[in-house]
């Protein structure tokens, strides 16, 4: 073990609203994956409900899978399915 690393976490849209924060710095054990970081976020942010929802993660502005190992200084974004543009007919609320 080489100790902790610092990463920046960003939330967007519904996730940001639920959590009540948009960005924070977090320390995770060296060797942690994106999945492990998300578990930490869920544990420390009980208002953030991810059960049964599709969520995306991006590391340094590129889409990432759960097993990616984080590096010192990584910027990790967590967000719901995107909905840019305007001609969409249905929405996922309900």
């Amino acid at each position: 073990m080489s100790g902790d690393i610092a990463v920046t976490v960003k939330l967007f849209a519904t996730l940001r609203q639920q959590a009540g924060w948009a960005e924070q710095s977090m320390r995770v054990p060296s060797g942690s994956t994106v999945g492990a970081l998300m578990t930490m976020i869920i544990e420390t942010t009980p208002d953030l409900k991810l059960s049964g929802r599709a969520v995306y993660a991006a590391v340094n502005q590129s889409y990432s899978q759960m097993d990616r190992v984080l590096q010192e200084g990584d910027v990790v974004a967590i967000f719901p399915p995107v909905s840019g543009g305007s001609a969409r007919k249905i929405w996922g609320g309900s």
Partner: protein
Amino acid sequence: MGERKRFEITTDALSLDDVAARVSDPRYGAITTFAGVVRGETVTAEGERGTDFLHYEAYAEMAESMLAQIGEEIQTQWPKVGAVSILHRIGRLEIGEPSVLIAVATPHRGDGCFEACRYAIERLKAVVPIWKQENWADGQVWVEGPRQPDLALDPTEVETK
């Protein structure tokens, strides 16, 4: 006009003449554009209801790099495409205002400008990190697009890890 950004997230009102100028060149005789415009009603599970206005939020740095990536994908698929520009507005938008503009310029109209323009809006809606919030007198709701199976994380994996 050559120095304007071709892929941009902006709070400014969008103009088709502006986006076309960003791809113009004496070599290109055909420009196709697409405008996504805020509609006056949205179909919900409970039927139609009026939209008062929309609010768009973006992960701007990543969104601009994804827009540029879509431009590169187009160059690969349609090598005759001369230039692509994609602009997405964020912040508050009123009904009738464009939220997204795409322009594709080619030497001739058969060189892929229509196909590439269609491709760009489909890809934008699938991968570019922008979210739409619909607002009415009595509330608001975040619109979520369809899940992209190849990109979305598995939520059960998150919960049980």
